[in-house]
């Protein structure tokens, strides 16, 4: 890939939180950012989180077995969810590209006239678990810097929702989501103090 460094997160491949990996190309020097004793290797002090690392290893193993099959499966679910949302719900915008240049498991959509945190709560009350790039879902009360960096307006970031599909999801999960989602969005748009017709 020709990179100098690469980070990998365990939880992004359905492994446990608390473990990650850093690839550093030979010859690249990295400065320490955390100092302390008990160092078994030069970059990071402290005792390794062995259970999490083992979980990370098992997650990687599982992710790599039947890899192509899983990727196709995720892409199909991803694309049917994207289509269902963009065609079925007005004032929505896909964040990021479609098709091959898009991560197979990622559906990130901005719902205008709705705030993201409220939508994540409403969806969770209906059995659908997602996250959002709104300021109110961030611990520092700032909207997703990634969405702002790709040129989205603040409102679009506040209304953004991230759905992740996995090899464990089924087309029925997508159907259920597409049943529940428009109702939640509608309800919150009725509560909202900003409405398309008032603009």
């Amino acid at each position, binding site marked *: 890939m020709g990179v100098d460094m690469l980070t990998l997160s365990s939880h992004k491949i359905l492994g446990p939180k608390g473990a990650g990996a850093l690839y550093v190309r030979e010859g690249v020097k990295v400065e320490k950012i955390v100092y302390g004793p008990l160092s078994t290797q030069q970059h990071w002090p402290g005792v390794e989180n062995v259970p999490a690392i083992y979980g990370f290893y098992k997650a990687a193993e599982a992710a790599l077995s039947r890899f192509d099959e899983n990727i196709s499966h995720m892409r199909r679910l991803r694309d049917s969810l994207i289509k269902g949302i963009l065609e079925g719900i007005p004032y929505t915008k896909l964040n990021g590209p479609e098709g091959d240049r898009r991560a197979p498991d990622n559906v990130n959509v901005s719902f205008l006239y709705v*705030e993201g945190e409220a939508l994540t709560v409403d969806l969770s009350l209906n059995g659908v678990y997602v996250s959002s790039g709104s*300021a109110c879902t961030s611990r520092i009360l700032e909207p997703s810097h990634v969405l702002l960096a790709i040129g989205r307006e*603040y409102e679009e970031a506040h209304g953004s929702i991230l759905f992740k599909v996995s090899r464990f999801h089924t087309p029925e999960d997508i159907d259920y989501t597409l049943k529940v989602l428009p109702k939640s969005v509608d309800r919150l748009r*009725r*509560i909202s103090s*900003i409405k398309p017709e008032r603009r």
Partner: protein
Amino acid sequence: MSTRVPLPYSKKVIELFRNPKNLGAMEDATVKATAGSPACGDMITFYLKIRDDETIEKATFESYGCAANIAAASITTEMIKGKSLKEAWKISWKDVSEDLGGLPSIKFHCGILAVGALRRAIRAYYEKVGRKPEWLPEDLTMEEKQALEEERMLEIMERRAKALK
């Protein structure tokens, strides 16, 4: 996106979020006031119907914001029903938080915004009728200042963002 940890919302907040009381615009409102902005991701609009004796006959809200924001706006409309403007003025963000069963600290700003919007509405009423009661302070209260700061800060950030594009 930061990892989202589900917030310890109280039962009351979830209840009001699911079934907000006094929701919707009021056609025949005496006054209407808004605090916050869509750019903040935090915005509350109150509609008040005020009787001649300066008591609040009816109050409704609309809100663009998180679950706590919606609950705070809704509970505020319940708290002020039937009260005189003088009594309604005294409601603080802590009262709102308490009535909601306690807001998590990261959500205090929702109670503050609700009070900011309410006080704006009360000021708007007195401007409309051209009177100024002695109990109405000249200077903005903390909750009103916070709303203003939020609105201004976003303006500044948006301008900076546009300049970079």
